[in-house]
């Protein structure tokens, strides 16, 4: 059995017939080949798969693609400006060395941008608490926090 899915992904309308079992992250990675969204765990904890669904950060590995029916999805590939200029958060991550292996990075950046949308001037404590859904094994978080602070200070 397949079900028709209609989505807007990174500003483009997408239509597909999919197996209902398809997770949103699978749909993005396998059907759309948007491989910037990563899968790091199977229990919805690591946050590497974080994307924006109707403007909110969610874990795309823990939601069926069909649950996003009719929604707007933004992935890391759609975050930069149309001319290719990186989003201020991406710039801040680079300048603050907020990434090492890069695997958690797309999810981390998507969480961080959603965090600032909700709370444009967060304290360090609020940033650390606000990133509780994203694990990073490389950076020790310090430079990620610094990147979010830097981005917040600039906007």
């Amino acid at each position: 059995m397949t079900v028709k899915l209609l989505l807007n992904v990174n500003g483009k309308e997408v239509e597909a017939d999919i197996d209902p079992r398809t997770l949103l992250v699978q749909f993005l990675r396998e059907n759309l080949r948007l491989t910037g969204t990563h899968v790091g765990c199977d229990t919805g904890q690591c946050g590497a798969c974080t994307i924006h669904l109707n403007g909110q950060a969610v874990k795309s590995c823990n939601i069926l693609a069909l649950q996003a029916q009719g929604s707007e999805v933004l992935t890391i590939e759609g975050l930069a400006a149309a001319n290719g200029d990186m989003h201020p958060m991406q710039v801040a991550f680079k300048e603050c060395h907020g990434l090492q292996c890069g695997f958690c990075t797309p999810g981390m950046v998507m969480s961080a941008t959603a965090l600032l949308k909700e709370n444009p001037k967060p304290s360090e404590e609020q940033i650390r608490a606000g990133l509780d859904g994203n694990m990073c094994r490389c950076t020790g978080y310090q430079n990620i926090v610094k990147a979010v602070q830097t981005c917040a200070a600039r906007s």
Partner: protein
Amino acid sequence: MGANPTSAFPNGIGASSLRKEDQRFLTGAGNYTDDINFPGQSYAYFLRSPHAHAKIKSIKTQAASAAPGVVAIFTGADLAEAKVGGLPCGWLITDMSGQPMKEPPHPPLAQGKVHHVGDQVAVVIAESYLQAKDAAELIEVDYDVLASVTDVATATQPGQPAVHDMAPNNVCYVWGHGDKAAVDKAFSAAAHVTTLEIRNNRLIPNAIEPRAAVAQYSRSEDAYTLYVANQNPHVERLLMTAFVLGLPEHKVRVIAPDVGGGFGSKIFLYAEETVITWAAKRVNRTIKWTAERFESFMSDAHGRDHATKAELALDKDGHFLAMRVKTAANLGAYLSTFASSVPTILYATLLAGQYTTPAIYAEVTGVFTNTVPVDAYRGAGRPEATFVVERLVSKAAMELGIAQDEIRRRNFIKTFPYATPVGLTYDVGNYEATLAAATKIADVAGFPARREEAKRRGKLRGIGYSCYIEACGLAPSNIAGALGARAGLFEAGEIRVHPTGSVTVFTGSHSHGQGHETTFAQVVAERLGIPFENVDVVHGDTGRIPFGMGTYGSRSLAVGGSAIMKALDKIIAKGKKIAAHMLEAADSDIVFENGNFKVAGTDKQLAFGQVAFSAYVPHNYPLDKLEPGLNETAFYDPTNFTYPAGSHICEVEVDPETGVTKVVSYVASDDFGNIVNPMIVEGQVHGGLVQGIGQALLEQAVYDPESGQLLSGSYTDYAMPRADDVPNFKVDTQVTPCTHNPLGVKGCGEAGAIGSPPAVISAVIDALKDLGVRDMAMPATPYRVWQTIQNARA
């Protein structure tokens, strides 16, 4: 004490250059193994043992084979029939009796018996991953479940089940190191002996990218390509072809593309990639396998897991006289690639620490258990040694009423080179300098007031020290060989200068977060005087790189960078000859400065790019004496290890009501020798510290003693450090350049994870010392701290 070099050159050595690799990682353009797809690829799913120890009576695959989409199913019997070998161990340890260690077979798919929960039993290859997984449920395995053993401290006792028949009592080796007689003598005369029994908790590496592999076979070339999340593709290829599959090495290309963290766990040759490489030819299909996280927990090599009794003999003034250490090290169910060397060569040799302890003896028993194989994890042996030494020292200080820093100062090694009683020769260091710097930054003088202030808030504040040393830059091949290594440990680098003067660097090191594309480019840009933007670094591909031993043991810059420096020397030497011809001067009159070949003492000069162009368009070129082209390869084998060292000071606050420990201040002053990119080095320290703090406070792999099940088999039970678990760190560097490599560098990747656990634990103990607490096991979870407080009060 030297200062870190700083270059006037933009993006040269000493500059915090922003990373070249970040653009792709930040925009979702990274290329990790699971991102790689080929038309018509099939998918593998591994059926794993649900039992810790069982005989396989039968495996029935008929129903599964008939399931939709199934391409093939293979079991251990198929591999045996095809004469596929076992996964090898790369380091021979010789038992005290003179016998080689016990090396039980490690078949990529179980044959006859399974030895741990998660052991591979069969592989299903199907058109889709879901089909492979669905079909695996239809495989019927009839197990005869056997009693299992998981605890390293008791596995060698009589009456415990034997994991392997060839190793009764589960002993792989008993290995001794040091002068036992001298140690025993020193203990018998000591004024004070401090004794410590510790468990170094078992850890699960948890790189956020799960292991993955894509294997291809080309009938036309009779050759294989394997994409794999791996830290050392050449070693992977060598082990897989020569020891397991019996394939000629030149017919297998191994590519480790972007790799999402390693921390040791991706050094090793694993069963999964081996099986799918073999199977790719059998089914003549591309096969993809990506671990689910639950598989990572039960199949990635784990780390640490020691049970140790350690003693330190001191004179009445707190000078160390001797150290005696007895360790049982869990090796797991099979010997993983470097498993045997981690608790021996990389452990006992570090027990001198930063101190002049004249006599040291260590006895290590390598123990088989029904658990996932244990191998190198960030630090590999050195965190275990540091924990033993630094906890002994802090405990001795407490017992003798000497301050934690003072007892260390009294025993520091002060003159170099220094030959330790455990076989290493430290070339250089200045331990007083890092301790002084850390003391100042941590405002140790203000600690009593902070402690009082915390007390008014109902919190117990403590301070802990750790003065660690590590042996990095692995490794001088002749020394490693004498110690049992079955491989060399040099590194290779190739510098390919293109006709227009841009450069591609091919390195045998592998970057999985360390930023080599940036650091190595800085080294090359500075040395050749060319723009950083004109240098690209290629790594992780046996088809493009001459050879490589990969990245682990904080070796990439010290060994891989040195190979690059040697290749650059060759480039410059050849460039000088070309320039001499073009400038009509003698070879010996040419100097190379700031990117220009000059005739010394004149204003005659050629830019590097002009010489490069001439090498490829050799119209005015000494063709009678010199080959055209500008491409040089060098191999570098270090003459000694490097010895990064530092002082860490940690302050914690314990909530005595709940047992919650918070790290409230952490200062690290490290000596990594010269530093190429301070920003990257700082990031490496941060990451290491959080892994060390994770070990000290949060992380533990726990097996059920009865069933042998891994209880901490997911992120709901294995506590990974998150952003709100850790503070901001204050990181400082002091510099004594390494004396024996061309960059004067020592390595920084593991220091944080090595130095931090004892600093944190000593701080927790210090916080609770007024309650009578003298020891604390890792991880100091709220539950454990609360229990310890209850016991102390009882």
